[in-house]
């Protein structure tokens, strides 16, 4: 187990290195002079030159790269062009909002999704099953932003049940619309996987044994079948966590939820390079770290994986 974790850890570091490199390249390929963009189009040549010197833009590319790498590892990603505040600090300030949204959405989608999946599997090929699965396919196909808009229209505007935009600090109702919108897609995916995994498990001999022993249906489903069907379901839920974090970005833009997503989109539209770099890098790092933790979780759930 220790060897597995250490191996994974070093591979993760390698990936992070690649991620930082790609983030670096991303912004040095952008047309336009970062210093000029920062100072505005009408700045004089002398000030632009001064800023270029300060940012080290005149040094050769590999020098800039190692500078970036060194600083990034220490947690310094520069200052935002737009607000002149420290990039890393701004991101860390906004992250809890995104995390709150993503985690609550994921919990909702996991619970409801698994329930729907179990019911569909138990009552497979009935109308209930077909309807649920069609609904699930529908959920996967609905573009998140479109669904968000329609939710905003129906529940926010017509029915006026929930507010349209703003943050939870003004009341729990503000969380509802964004969270439900975000939860739809993972819910659908989890429901489908749960159903197919449960169906696989239910055809196994030990389930027939349990039923033959006279166990109640509840016991059969929850104590025996579900446990063994869990592996792909857990895989999907953890994959959904990363996807949900990504999807949250769009939702934040639509519902004006002050998290990293809104920050990322705003900075892209304003061409605030340090912030763009910061948000992209931060997202990738979170993703890689989550994957690393999930890989360890797999090894705990299924010991065979350690031998891979």
């Amino acid at each position, binding site marked *: 187990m220790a060897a597995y974790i250490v191996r994974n850890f070093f591979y993760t570091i390698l990936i992070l290195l690649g991620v930082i490199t790609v983030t670096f390249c991303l912004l040095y390929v*952008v047309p336009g002079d970062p210093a000029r963009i920062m100072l505005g189009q009408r700045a004089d040549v002398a000030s632009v030159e001064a800023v270029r010197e300060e940012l080290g833009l005149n040094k050769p590319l590999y020098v800039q790269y190692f500078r970036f790498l060194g600083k990034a590892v220490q947690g310094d990603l520069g200052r935002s062009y737009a607000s002149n505040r420290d990039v890393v600090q701004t991101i860390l300030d906004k992250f809890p909002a995104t995390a709150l949204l993503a985690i609550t959405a994921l919990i909702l989608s996991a619970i409801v999704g698994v329930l729907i999946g179990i019911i569909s599997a138990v009552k497979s090929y009935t109308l209930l099953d077909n309807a649920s699965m069609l609904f699930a396919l529908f959920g996967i196909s609905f573009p998140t932003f479109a669904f968000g808009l329609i939710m905003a229209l129906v529940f926010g*505007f017509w029915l006026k049940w929930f507010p349209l935009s703003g943050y939870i600090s003004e009341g729990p109702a503000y969380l509802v619309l964004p969270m439900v919108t975000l939860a739809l897609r993972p819910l659908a995916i989890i429901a489908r996987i749960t159903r197919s995994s449960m169906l696989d498990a239910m055809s196994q001999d030990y389930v027939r044994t349990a039923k033959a022993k006279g166990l109640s249906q509840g016991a059969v489903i929850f104590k025996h079948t579900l446990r063994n069907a869990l592996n792909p379901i857990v895989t999907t839920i953890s994959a959904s966590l990363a996807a949900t974090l*990504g999807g949250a970005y769009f939702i934040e833009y639509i519902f004006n939820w002050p998290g990293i997503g809104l920050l990322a*989109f705003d900075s892209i539209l304003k061409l605030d390079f340090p912030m763009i770099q910061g948000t992209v890098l931060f997202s990738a790092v979170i993703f890689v770290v989550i994957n690393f933790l999930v890989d360890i979780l797999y090894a705990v759930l299924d010991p065979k994986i350690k031998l891979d």
Partner: protein
Amino acid sequence: MEAVEQPIIAEEGIIIDQTPKSLWYYSWKRLRRNKLAMIGLGIIVILFFVAATAELIAPFNPNAQILEYSVKPIGFQGNVLIKKFDGDVQYIPIQGIIKEDAGKVYYKDFSGSEANIDKSELEGDSQKEWNKELTFHLGTDRFGRDVLSRLIYGSRVSLSVGIISESIALFLGILFGAIAGYFRGKTDGVIMWIINVVWAFPSILFIIALSVVLGKGFWQAFVAIGLTGWVDIARIVRGQFFSLRETEYIEATKAMGFKAPRVIIKHMLPNCMGPVIVTGTVGLATAILFEASLSFLGLGVQPPTASWGQMIFDGYKYIIAGSNWGLAVFPSLAIMITIFAVNLVGDGLRDALDPKLKR
């Protein structure tokens, strides 16, 4: 409905057709029986038809602006004079015709003041031809452009971006997946590292960042989406190659001394195509979704080209304001139906191509 392939028997005991058929034949038959997948396929065919015949079926030019008719509701009808303009027509909204004589037409224009125009500038010869009541079946957007026509033309953008981006992704994915899967070792290590690094970035952020780097536009959207989509395909191909490499017939090709490209292209790739097609179909749905997302943010396809995502971007503020909600809802429905149809077909393909399922 036949459940099992029966040899065709003409007379007692005489069998006419017992030729073995390929996987594709049986898969197609299985797919045909899947009603939902066939509905999905039907929707896609209709969509293609709409995109191809857009000029014929769209009631208006999607870029024709009639500013006076900005943001009008569904089914709105307007009285217009039709004027000749640069080989096309221009619509002049009027309140009504006052009178006409030999050379001119006198009318009340949109704001109520009197105006006149030479008959030579008008389209056609009779009042029936240059004075019509236009119907905007789904309303107009803020520039007075017909929503229905823009929806019809928008299908072109969604379909073409989806197909081209996914083709780029398929090409890159098959290339890298095959190389990684065949040569293994260090090559595989490097390619897997690249795949993991690309996969670490949230797709939507990556695509947007790429779009900013590459600039806004049609071609940039293809490249950006294709560069993120290849990862899934590569994984599948690589996985398939790993299992195929152990099979005896591939070992036989090595024994026969075939060179790598020949083995890969002629022997291994054709056997991977099942899962690749399924993943490619799902990827197509995702590509259409990403195009819509890009356009929604103002990147990707630029105005005045009609794109569904862009129509949502334009119409989005009207939902909050509470006026013509159709502006954002109709393109959303269009996207959703398209993606839903593609997913139905993808699901059906997955079931049909699975050789483990009993026929």
